[in-house]
């Protein structure tokens, strides 16, 4: 993996890396089908999809019988006990206990009846939460304050994984390095460079069925999946996951045969690919490796801080209009093609607005003019609104201090220079770590910030909420965007289930945002994944997933190291 989780506690599984490990070491109620594209939900620990009441407020979920936690000293006599509905209730309650330092509470904030109150009353676990109950050993009932169509998606994430209270009591903070779950794997060792997992022999026996996982023989043959039919996952005895953030080192390790599965760093794309569109492997590699090129489930965009009167909202109407013109000019001067070409090998997909290509509500016929570069129009905008080299504001671009980010900044500066923006008025604002960067923009101190967002579930609501007024910093609306119409439409659509009319509303909101020029957005990067042909596997990195991993198998009988 190209990053390391710092913490394996599911309540803190906020990065792709942590989530990957969390969903393989613990159980979640739901997951996505291994092979179905676009993604389809599949019961995991749950028996079936939830029963939802007519008003959309009550969810009843039954969980499977005979599921056990791994053996661990936390349990009496070291024997893992059966998982029951109370465990789920407990796991969710944990997020609302300050001691947990949860990073996932926002998923259920103010959504479940009585849960926020429970926290205010001191997070007493003896107390019942009316909206989160175990009706019996195997049945869970959730009461919502308002319809929340994305609830079931949240139940696929590592945040919702089932944690036994004995483990929390026994390990306390060290739960982060001593996972005790009921997932397909159990942990052998973990440090900041690697995690080693082995098959959990007590995992539920559920034979692999190609059909129920949504196998498409036209697109998905040739990966050796058919031979795994009927076998019981997980198929690997032992897995080593190495955390190698440095592209060079990771690539070297892969080439040297130390890794069986890798995300190819962008700098190696031209060494690896024979052709870009469609992506195919060089013949020398094709004999040993499989390739998958897919767009990430997220995107990168640069926000303007609308709360900053130098570039955003201004109390004076004329100034406000001038600022908007400046922003629109900057957006028009941004050369997406060049950015894509240099940093993403031309394989990213550029789109206008904030509904990325991987979201179901994406509009492929979207107006491409919105992100095509137009220097003349940019200059005209500046001229018409009285901007000149003398009175243009000093721009501060925030980013974390890394080689790539710095080069991106220099490129951005050259883009603006071509429009006539004086180079010495554009300054880098560097931060040594992501935490510091986050602190600054969450405190509204950064004028322009580049942010990457990974979607939590396949629903554009997840990206649209990034510009919902009340979500302003320290929430995830880092642009501090606030448009009345946009907000109204958001509230109206938030309780709607996925439908054509909802999609229409989302697209309308996207248009409003594009017109307001609040963000330079965006590009979805393409991920090139390579894996050894000896592995029968079809990976998926989307939606903070990792559920696919239990289905990874060997084509030959050989103990291997992976990833």
């Amino acid at each position, binding site marked *: 993996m190209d990053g390391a989780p*710092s*913490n394996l*506690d599911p309540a*803190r599984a*906020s990065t792709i890396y942590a989530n990957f490990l969390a969903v393989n070491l613990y159980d979640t109620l739901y997951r996505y089908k291994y092979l179905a594209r676009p993604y389809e939900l599949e019961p995991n620990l749950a028996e079936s999809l939830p029963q939802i009441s007519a008003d959309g407020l009550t969810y009843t979920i039954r969980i499977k019988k005979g599921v056990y936690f791994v053996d661990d000293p936390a349990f009496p006599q070291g024997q893992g006990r059966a998982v029951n509905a109370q465990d789920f209730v407990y796991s969710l309650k944990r997020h609302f206990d*300050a*001691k947990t*330092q*949860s*990073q*996932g*509470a*926002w998923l259920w*904030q103010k959504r479940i009846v009585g849960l926020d109150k429970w926290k205010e009353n001191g997070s007493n676990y003896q107390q019942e939460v009316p909206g989160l109950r175990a009706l019996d050993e195997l049945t869970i009932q959730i009461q919502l304050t308002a319809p929340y169509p994305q609830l079931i998606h949240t139940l696929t994430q590592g945040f919702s994984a089932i944690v036994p209270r004995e483990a929390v009591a026994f390990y*306390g*903070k*060290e*739960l*982060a*390095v001593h996972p005790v779950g009921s997932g397909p794997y159990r942990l052998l060792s973990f*440090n*900041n*460079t*690697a995690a080693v997992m082995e098959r959990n022999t007590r995992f539920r026996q559920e034979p692999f069925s190609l059909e129920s996982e949504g196998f498409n023989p036209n697109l998905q043959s040739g990966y050796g999946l058919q031979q795994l039919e009927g076998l019981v996952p997980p198929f690997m005895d032992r897995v*080593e996951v*190495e955390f*190698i953030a*440095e592209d*060079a*080192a990771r690539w*070297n*390790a892969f*080439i*040297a045969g*130390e890794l069986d599965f890798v995300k190819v760093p962008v700098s190696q794309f031209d060494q690896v690919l024979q052709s870009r569109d469609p992506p195919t492997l060089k013949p020398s590699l094709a004999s040993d490796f499989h390739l998958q090129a897919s767009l990430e489930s997220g995107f990168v965009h640069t926000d303007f801080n609308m709360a900053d009167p130098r570039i955003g909202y201004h109390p004076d109407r004329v100034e406000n209009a001038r600022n908007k013109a400046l922003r629109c000019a900057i957006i028009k001067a941004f050369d997406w093609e060049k950015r894509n070409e240099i940093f993403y090998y031309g394989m990213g997909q550029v789109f206008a607005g904030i509904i990325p290509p991987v979201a179901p509500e994406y509009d492929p016929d979207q107006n491409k003019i919105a992100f095509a570069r137009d220097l003349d129009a940019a200059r005209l905008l500046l001229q018409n609104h009285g901007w000149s080299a003398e009175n243009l504001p000093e721009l501060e671009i925030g980013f974390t201090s890394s080689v790539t980010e710095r080069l991106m900044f220099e490129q951005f500066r050259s883009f603006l220079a071509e429009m006539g923006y004086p180079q010495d008025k554009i300054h880098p604002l560097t931060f*040594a*770590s*992501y*935490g*510091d960067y*986050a*602190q600054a923009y*969450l405190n509204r101190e950064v004028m322009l910030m580049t942010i990457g967002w990974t979607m939590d579930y396949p629903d554009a609501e997840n990206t649209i909420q990034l510009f919902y007024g009340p*979500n302003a910093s*320290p*929430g*995830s609306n880092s642009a501090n965007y606030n448009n009345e119409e946009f907000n109204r439409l958001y509230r109206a659509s938030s309780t709607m289930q996925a439908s054509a009319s909802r999609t229409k509303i989302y697209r309308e909101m996207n248009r409003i945002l594009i017109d307001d020029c609040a963000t330079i957005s965006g590009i979805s990067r393409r991920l090139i994944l390579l894996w050894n042909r000896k592995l029968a596997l079809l990976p998926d990195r989307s939606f903070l997933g990792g559920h696919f991993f239990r289905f990874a198998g060997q084509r030959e009988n050989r103990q291997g190291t992976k990833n």
Partner: protein
Amino acid sequence: MRSIVQQLIHGLLLILGVTLISFLLMVWFGPDQTYTLIGKNATAAQIAEVRHQLGYDQPFVRRYVDYLTGLATLDLGASNSSGEQVTSILKRTLPISLALMLPGFIIGNLLGMALGLLAAFRRGTWSDRLITGLSVTGMSISFLIIIIALQVLLSTPYGLNLFPVRGWQVDSISSYLTYVTVPTLSLILVTLGYNTRFYRAIFVEESSREHIVTARAFGASPATLMWRHVLKNSLVPITTRFMFSIPLVVISGSLLIETYFGIPGIGKVSFDAITSGDQPVLKAVVGLTAVLFVLIQFVADFIYRAVDPRIA
């Protein structure tokens, strides 16, 4: 001649000073870890909660005193990022750093000693000039350049491709050797220049002492002189240097090697702690290094005075 009590006080003052300065730097002014620990869409209330958990809202003096007491009682707490007990982190990483750095350190020094001896022995000749020239060259190459070059030459298909690029999956002698070779080579190459010069200077210094010069005038063979007298008398500065270098090399020097080669040792752990602001880990590392350093100074001082009574 300072009394033991005076030295103890001196040492204590030193520890206080180190802890105070590092506390100021790394804790008071250091990065705020709150923002790495909160999730997406945090509310102001949640942020305040996390800050409280991390202890940021307490006054400076209180936090400093807590730090000192924790250090004294060896109650070092748990890492904020990973939750692991600091003592277990130390137990896990220190052996790795030692196993990583010691071979290079020892070989580098022995090689430096040998070359320095040779150069001093044949001073003024072409071999001396060659060695000196090489060591100056060695001193002029940045550590980073050596690491990158070695990695390309030894671990990639552009070179020999014999060794792993990074990592530390050590469970046997052979795996230890595969993982430790490239870092050790880099360490040796980087320090060889300095070591050779240092040892050459010492040996030259010693061999120009009057008793040596006189012995030579009387026809004593240079070899015996070198071995028996020069080396012996040089032992004191050599040992002190060794002792002073060890904590610094292991903790500070290992930082770059470990971050580059991805080795989970104490250098990398402390660097990660600095960049993320994980205070419990930082406090422990700095505090213990200070104590260690003071102890070593004590011992070195003692040895020095015991061996050479002229020095007071």
